[in-house]
């Protein structure tokens, strides 16, 4: 078996793309049918890449009462789309996990939206997770962020993208990372060791 690799071609490619959750309406009414999207690429807030469906390990919603609902999704041109009708008031968590056939989870994205009244925001305790402490979904609100790896706080620079632009959120010694919420969609992301996570929310 020594000569197994007689000829080797090697190709290097650019680093990973970002994926995030978005909505047809981020502030729906109770019972209103909305579409939840997985978007991706470099043309934020538009999607230019639909992630391959076989990579989506989970795409689910957790209702304010804690019920987990798996979303039926399909590829629509350059995004992944699923329909959902929120039937209770409060804050919903939407998340998806991208994983390889060997079970390795390499991308975790979550998002929050609410119907009528905001309720408690819960963490999902994923391997890589960005968490927000106290959030009112208000424009110009300053929120504290944490980046957790296996539940342990890690001081790593986060990246943000919103309609005003793109930038970095740095941790300062002894202080939390602070982000000023912009109107419309806000996406915050972080990467560590080839794995990535994002959090999406809307300010108004």
């Amino acid at each position, binding site marked *: *078996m*020594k*000569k*197994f*690799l*007689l*000829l*080797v*071609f*090697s*190709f*290097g*490619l*650019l*680093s*990973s*793309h970002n*994926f995030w959750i978005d909505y047809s309406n981020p502030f729906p009414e109770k019972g209103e049918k909305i579409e939840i999207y997985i978007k*991706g*690429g470099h043309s934020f807030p538009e999607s*230019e*890449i639909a*992630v*391959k469906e*076989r*990579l989506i390990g989970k795409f689910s919603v957790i209702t304010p009462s804690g019920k987990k609902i798996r979303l039926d999704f399909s590829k629509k041109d350059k995004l992944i789309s699923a329909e959902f009708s929120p039937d209770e008031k409060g804050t919903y968590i939407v998340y998806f996990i*991208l994983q*390889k*056939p*060997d079970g*390795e989870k390499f991308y975790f994205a979550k998002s929050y939206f609410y119907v009528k009244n905001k309720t408690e925001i819960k963490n999902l305790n994923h391997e890589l997770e960005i968490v927000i402490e106290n959030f009112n979904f208000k424009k110009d609100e300053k929120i504290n962020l944490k980046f957790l790896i296996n539940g342990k706080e890690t001081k790593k620079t986060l990246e943000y993208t919103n309609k005003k632009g793109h930038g970095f959120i740095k941790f300062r010694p002894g202080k939390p990372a602070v982000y000023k919420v912009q109107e419309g969609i806000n996406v915050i992301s972080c990467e560590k060791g*080839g794995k990535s996570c994002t959090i999406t929310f809307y300010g108004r």
Partner: protein
Amino acid sequence: MHHYFLWTLILISHGVEYEFFENAKGIRVYYENGTPMSFADYKIYSPDGKIFAEGMTDKKGRILFLPDKKGEWKIEVDDGMGHGFIKTFSIENPEEPVVTQKGNIPFYSKFITGISLIIGFTGIFFYITARKKYAHT
């Protein structure tokens, strides 16, 4: 009973044999930061433009195949997340596989499988017959 023997014959006629060979061509695909492009879809086209191989890269981002024709070959790789490439490459001297080991499923294994199937189907047959009989009584 004719049916049972027919099943056994079909099973034997679909025996599997295998060969290990060692002169495969290799392609390794990875991201700019050195991370392997694992489990990405690929297609390899032979010089006549037909698909010669199709599948997924392994955990280390590798593809192995053995071209059988001289000429311009093409490979397409897509990681399903917006990364990929198309590359043509030339094969001057296609090789025959250098076989290092051969094997097949041993006959006794086929025999035991055949007997097991006969016993299994007989059991199902008598079970259905008995159910019908007791249903009538």
